């Protein structure tokens, strides 16, 4: 039985894990870099150990140092959170070898999930549909052309060594394909010295829909429903919700069965996520498995009533799942907004620095997972997610209006945030109708709508703003200038 867990992470997810452990009476060990000695996870854990410099490579990714702290602190388990070492199969294997309970899938399963080609092959074998395309690397341009004609244009040429939009070409006919093949090959060779290309059907107006996988060490597997995460910027999720507005119970069950098969195909244990693209014609295509607790897990907790971190610990302890698929019922609607430190108008560029003041929203069916507190700092060394604001409602609209109220209450001084954008999105007819796709922001001109909304908000607040300015001008300016205000008999005492 797990009695003391080292949490190899920081920020809100470290706090999330600590919260459940505290409740269960499990001791927690925090680790922290130079940048984080004043962070919440250090303050909330049972014990806290310094592990190195601010740069992740020198602290949160430093496997040796973390292993050393696990051993010296007497921890019997490790929770990796998400990011950092969470999907590093070498580290998971090292923990296994040292008899440390790694709360997640086995190193072997993680390895398989991490290799997109092998994982796709396993899915094909298990009859889980994947995006049509080459079964593996294409041999040459002729092979690519043959496959493109089989699956039909448009297709995507993708170097397996690329990433983040690089080494990718969308082509719509044989001529473009031949040109594109050249370009992708040379880009890949110049970047990493080698090239390996796959061909995939290019899908338009797709939705990103993922399923919560859950499988214990005895082979019992269920899915805990879907999450729709279509609202994205630069392939990164901004707003997630469950249920998806286009998934009905029949679809939920049908795709859910595929998810159970998928988890079996890679011998997955613990919680994970199976990601799908849903084409505009209604087809679901498996993309990949995230072999860890997902950022957006709270919305699934809200509609299932489960505590996922407790579930993870129970599974890691070897306990069988306490429920079967038929016991799981979806209750209500939940939405998550990822509150990022970024400037929407600077193409979502990061915004960092001290946060002198912050007001965290709260209220019935509002949950905010965050590392923020007045006087904290948003560090440039780590990612831009400051808070996850989640709301639940018995109806979608209840969840949506609760989110809007909570977004209005959320104040973060000192950095730019994605809050104003979310208010615009949640107020939009397109969002209310559930007309979602991964190009939602662009397709519905959300940034322009935001600009208008901000202007409206300023007009609404203008008289109050002027009133505040008048008081400031008449009192403080006169004081600064040593020139008593002439237009008023100002007598308010400073406190």
């Amino acid at each position, binding site marked *: 039985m797990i009695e003391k867990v080292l949490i190899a992470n920081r920020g809100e997810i470290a706090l999330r894990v600590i919260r459940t452990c505290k409740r269960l009476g499990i001791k927690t060990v925090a680790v922290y870099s130079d940048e984080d000695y004043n962070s919440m996870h250090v303050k909330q854990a049972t014990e806290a150990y310094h592990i190195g410099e601010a740069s992740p490579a020198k602290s949160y990714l430093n496997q040796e140092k973390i292993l050393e702290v696990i051993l010296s602190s007497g921890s019997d388990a490790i929770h990796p959170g998400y990011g950092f070492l969470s999907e590093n199969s070498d580290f998971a294997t090292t923990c296994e070898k040292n008899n440390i309970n790694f709360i997640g899938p086995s190193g072997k399963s993680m390895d398989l999930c991490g290799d997109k080609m092998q994982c796709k092959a396993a899915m094909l074998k298990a009859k889980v549909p994947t995006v049509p395309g080459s079964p593996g690397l294409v041999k040459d341009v002729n092979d690519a052309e043959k496959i493109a004609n089989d699956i039909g244009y448009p297709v995507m040429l993708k170097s397996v060594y690329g990433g983040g939009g690089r080494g990718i070409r969308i082509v719509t006919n044989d001529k473009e394909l031949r040109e594109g093949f050249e370009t992708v090959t040379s880009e890949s060779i110049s970047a990493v010295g080698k090239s390996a290309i796959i061909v995939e059907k290019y899908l338009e107006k797709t939705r990103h829909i993922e399923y919560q996988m859950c499988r214990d060490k005895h082979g019992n597997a269920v899915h805990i429903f879907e999450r729709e995460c279509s609202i994205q910027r630069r392939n990164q999720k901004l707003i997630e919700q469950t249920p998806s507005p286009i998934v009905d119970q029949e679809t939920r069950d049908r795709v859910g069965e595929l998810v159970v098969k998928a988890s079996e195909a890679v011998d997955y244990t613990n919680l994970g996520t199976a990601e799908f693209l849903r084409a505009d014609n209604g087809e679901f295509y498996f993309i990949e498995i995230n072999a860890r607790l997902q950022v957006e897990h709270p919305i699934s907790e809200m509609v299932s009533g489960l505590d996922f971190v407790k579930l993870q610990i129970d599974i890691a302890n070897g306990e069988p799942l306490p429920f079967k698929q038929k016991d799981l019922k979806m209750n209500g609607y939940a939405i998550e907004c990822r509150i990022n430190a970024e400037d929407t108008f600077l193409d979502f560029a990061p915004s960092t620095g001290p946060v002198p*003041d912050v007001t965290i929203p709260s209220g019935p069916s509002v949950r905010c997972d965050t590392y923020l507190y007045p006087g904290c700092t948003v560090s440039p060394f780590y990612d831009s997610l400051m808070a996850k604001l989640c709301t639940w409602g018995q109806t979608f609209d209840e969840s949506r209006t609760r989110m809007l109220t909570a977004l209005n209450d959320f104040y973060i001084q000192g950095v730019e945030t994605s809050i104003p954008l979310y208010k615009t999105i949640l107020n939009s007819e397109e969002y209310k109708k559930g007309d979602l796709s991964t190009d939602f922001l662009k397709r519905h001109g959300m940034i322009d709508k935001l600009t208008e909304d901000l202007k409206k908000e300023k007009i609404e607040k203008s008289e109050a703003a002027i009133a505040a300015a008048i*008081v*400031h*001008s008449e009192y403080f300016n006169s004081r600064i200038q040593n020139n008593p205000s002439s237009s008023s008999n100002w007598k308010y005492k*400073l406190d």
Partner: protein
Amino acid sequence: MNYKIQDIEKSFEGRIIENLGNNDYVIKINDNEHKLKIITMNSKGIEFILDQKYHKAKYLEQSTNEMNIVIDNVPITINRNTHFDEVVYKITGGASGADAQLSLKSQIPGKVVSISVSEGDSVKKGDVVCTLESMKMQVAIKSHKDGVVKTIKVKETGTVAKGDVVAEIE
């Protein structure tokens, strides 16, 4: 005093016209009188009830002509002057007046990953001058106007704070 809110056309003339005691005042904004009750106030902010509505404002940075406040969580920039014609004020997005400026400033902090131009190069508005890394993301700093790179003020692997000058472009 005259006031103007950034991004809004209308300008406002406002002043306190009466002190009723007990922290109650009458203020006039353009042609309308309003009741103002101050709940708490110091140099960092104010809480007040305007007519029947509560508001909370924070006073952030300010110069003689410009003040940044956050009112009810909404950030607003106010320009003030006795005569408005004298004030040149910015528009969000920073188009007007920006062309005249020599300095290209970084609007984000970060580490310099690469520099794409050399001193003496001709650049067009929107050309990448250098690339910064922050929060695991790469962000391009683009020229704010057409011109010639006079000086480059940053070095590769060096760090840049928000507002630092990256280059001067003539």
